[in-house]
């Protein structure tokens, strides 16, 4: 099925003020489309966590969003250092975020597990030195 809406967002590196702008835009779009509020909320949380990860760990990146009749597919990718041990990174409480990020209230090692908790489908692809790709799919109530 062809996607109905396609969006691409830049996620600027090290700009903590702008972080969340892409997720905020997608949230507004889903609200306008009349998607069920609980699904909008889960989508927002999952995408925002991934967007923050791209800012904090990935030197910024891009978000590609495709909205179909029955679902939204989000890809957030960065060209950062990648994740050496994905299993470890998925563990709640494990974090490599610097103190400066923790002082901002983030970097507690809950992000990836929280994406998994909120997303209907979640795929994480990463390799040390090759960046990270996060795929999130959410299905709408039809």
């Amino acid at each position, binding site marked *: 099925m062809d996607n109905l809406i396609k969006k691409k967002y830049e996620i600027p590196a090290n700009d*903590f003020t702008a*972080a*969340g702008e892409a997720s905020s835009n997608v*949230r507004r779009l889903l609200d306008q489309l009349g998607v069920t509020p609980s699904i909008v909320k889960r989508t927002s949380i999952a995408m*925002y*966590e991934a967007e923050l990860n791209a800012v904090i760990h990935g030197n910024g990146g891009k978000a590609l969003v495709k909205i179909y009749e029955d679902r939204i597919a989000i890809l957030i990718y960065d060209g950062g250092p990648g994740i050496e041990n994905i299993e470890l990174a998925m563990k709640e409480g494990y974090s490599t975020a610097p103190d400066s990020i923790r002082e901002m*209230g*983030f970097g507690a090692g809950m992000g990836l597990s929280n994406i998994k908790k909120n997303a209907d489908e979640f795929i994480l692809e990463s390799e040390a030195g090759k960046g990270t790709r996060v795929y999130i799919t959410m299905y709408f109530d039809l």
Partner: protein
Amino acid sequence: MILSEIVNLLNCQVHTCGDKLDIMVKSACGADLMSDVMAFSKENAMLLTGLINPQVIRTAEMLDIQVIVFVRGKKPDSGMCELAGEKGIVLLSTDLPMFVSCGVLYKAGVTGRGSDCG
């Protein structure tokens, strides 16, 4: 509880959306760590925090939190107020510390039942 009562109880300064003080607040969450708010907060209308940065507003937006109370005398800057105003989020501040603020509200009937955090 109606938000205007909370403003009185905590002696709050209202920074944005002063026209929304008729919001009903049944449960709240108190945390300085936004990671925890994102991971554990459920159906809360209000967040109490001592953290001051724009990502507090973003976090509230993603979680449908309608009211943020900054404790310990912290005040949001103009950029934060502008962002919150755009999102329709009420920003309040109180000189009371976190523990006392939460205690006052809990005693008055605002529980944390919508949340595992704070």
